[in-house]
């Protein structure tokens, strides 16, 4: 029967063309939007993970309670031992120490007095260990505008905006004026190795990047770190795995009564990222619902028009003794086949478009420049395995629903009046 129906669909273009076009378009949009939303939200979450949250993050309880202020006076102490324990307890994860610091970046004149200065938002990461992946993780080499990466102790990368504002060139000296973790004044001279621009205001405003050893010396933080970030080998956030690591770490190392005991948070626990993850999933759900609803309306109408056009055909089939139920069933089978063909076409087009925008991201740099949120400057979609089946949900469901609604008319035909109708 399937073969018979398929032949009917292919030979009678007026029965199939418009529904296939409608389903294909709807599926294309569903697939593409799913890829786009997943890509954009994924990039935002990934950027946060790389720069601030990790897949999991360890801080002291007191630091965690005020983590927006990056209070280094509440930093973790004895981090080398903790790092050893982490590597032993969770060998399939990568652990890195970070120090965030604020202060003033001061440019001297020839007398060593202030020529210009601006607030600094510094990040200290391990840039000089040969095995460190931090520079690539934060895309530092790709964000350098002038000069070079930090090659040795005493060098710093500074915001390109700051460098332009105060006429600072690579090779010039700047001074960081900050506070040690014990509250004393901290002064440290750095040679500017290069200037940097990440394309996001949150990261670029007063950005200073130094090696963690220099920060430790300047801020009196030997064997201490503000945060320890953990990354999965898979290089993506795995919610359930993160929750399991968090539970086991906190059970072993954290003590609610001690505000300086370490506590682990997952990426989702920080910066409202759990809400963002849930939001991205609900956006995909909403997109599918909208397309199922809208396409069902269109396909219902198409079905009604088709039903009117095929009024005679159904009449003859009824007159020949075919059961109403059987005709209705063939109509649904037709819908499934048309929906399948449309979904297949739409999925192919949608995946192609998503792949194109994955390889050729759209730059929104000018729009994101002044935003306070941590957003990537380029938005891209992403091709996931989900895209290959997600379009079939609205494609098949809308088509079947449309035909099922329009096919109800078959049951309203009065068999006794069939021949009279057919005479006409």
């Amino acid at each position: 029967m399937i073969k018979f129906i398929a032949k009917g669909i292919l030979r009678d273009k007026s029965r199939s063309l418009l529904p296939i076009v409608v389903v294909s378009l709807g599926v294309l949009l569903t697939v593409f939007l799913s890829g786009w939303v997943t890509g954009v939200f994924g990039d935002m979450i990934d950027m946060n993970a790389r720069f601030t949250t990790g897949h999991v993050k360890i801080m002291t309880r007191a630091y965690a309670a005020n983590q927006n202020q990056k209070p280094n006076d509440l930093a973790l102490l004895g981090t080398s031992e903790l790092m050893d324990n982490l590597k032993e307890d969770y060998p399939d994860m990568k652990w890195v120490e970070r120090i965030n610091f604020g202060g003033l970046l001061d440019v001297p004149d020839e007398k060593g007095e202030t020529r210009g200065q601006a607030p600094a938002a510094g990040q200290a990461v391990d840039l000089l260990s040969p095995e460190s992946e931090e520079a690539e993780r934060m895309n530092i080499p790709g964000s350098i505008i002038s000069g070079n990466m930090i090659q040795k102790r005493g060098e710093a990368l500074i915001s390109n905006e700051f460098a332009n504002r105060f006429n600072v060139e690579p090779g010039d000296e700047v001074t960081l004026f900050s506070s040690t973790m014990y509250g004393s004044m901290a002064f440290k001279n750095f040679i500017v190795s290069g200037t940097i621009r990440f394309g996001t205001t949150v990261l670029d405003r007063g950005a200073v990047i130094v090696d963690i050893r220099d920060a430790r010396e300047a801020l009196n933080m030997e064997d201490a770190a503000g945060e320890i970030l953990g990354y999965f080998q898979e290089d993506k956030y795995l919610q359930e795995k993160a929750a399991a690591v968090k539970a086991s770490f906190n059970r072993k190392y954290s003590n609610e009564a001690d505000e300086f005991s370490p506590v682990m948070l997952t990426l989702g626990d920080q910066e409202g990222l759990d809400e963002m993850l849930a939001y991205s999933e609900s956006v995909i759900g909403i997109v599918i619902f909208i397309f199922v609803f809208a396409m069902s309306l269109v396909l219902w109408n198409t079905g009604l028009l088709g039903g009117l056009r095929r009024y005679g055909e159904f009449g003859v089939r009824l007159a020949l003794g075919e059961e109403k139920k059987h005709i209705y069933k063939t109509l649904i089978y037709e819908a499934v086949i048309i929906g399948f063909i449309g979904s297949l076409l739409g999925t192919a087009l949608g995946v192609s478009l998503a792949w194109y925008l994955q390889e050729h991201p759209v730059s929104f740099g000018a729009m994101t420049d002044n935003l306070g949120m941590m957003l990537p400057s380029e938005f891209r979609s992403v091709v996931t395995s989900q895209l290959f089946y997600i379009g079939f949900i609205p494609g098949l469901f809308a088509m079947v629903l449309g035909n099922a609604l329009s096919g109800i008319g078959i049951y309203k035909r009065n068999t006794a009046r069939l021949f009279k109708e057919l005479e006409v």
Partner: protein
Amino acid sequence: MNTLLMLFFSFSTLLQGNPDADEILERVDQNMSSKNRVVESTMIIHGRRGSRTITSRTYSVGDTKSFTEYLSPPREQGTKMLKLEEQLWIYSPDSDRTIQISGHMLRQSVMGSDLSYEDMMDDRKLQEVYNAEITGETSIEGRICYQLQLNAKVDDASYESRKLWIDKERYIPLKQELYAKGGQLLKRITLSEIERIEGRWFPMKMVYKDVLKEGEGTEFMVNSIRFNQDIPEYIFTKAALRR
């Protein structure tokens, strides 16, 4: 005993006539301000992870010039601060740099204490900055005090308003509360160990508590104070920072 003291002071006040708020402020300024002074002090900062002790020597002339040199601990030793009018420079021997501090940075904590750079620098006479009003009388640690409400009359006051509890006999504030423009309490200062020095009363211990900050506050103790000294003029130059 307290009641007797109250009666005694009430009687004395009746004989002398009640000073108004401006007269009280004037007498406070006479005690607290001077032409110049040299102070050696110890600051004990009680943080959440323990306490630190910092000693320093400060030369100041009126409310316009001030020079502070940190004497200990070793990490702070040799750090110097110079204030001229509204400008502040800090010199660090480690980096051999002189950095100018201005704007909102002046409201930041000094050495992690409960004092801001502005608190350290601000030595203007209260009478020049605030309008005062007597709001009552109360007793602090057995001392009868005028309770004064001070509201800023200039735009550049560090704190928009203050509440002062002034010892009725010695004209020294025993307690202060400092408020922001919105009326939010920012700091509490408790002054004690009042001593008679060179004909004036002066508090040798002040405990600052920044109420927006956790911790037990900062004790500021005057080890020695000399008024109206001959301070060489070169002390108040940027060149002196590097000496």
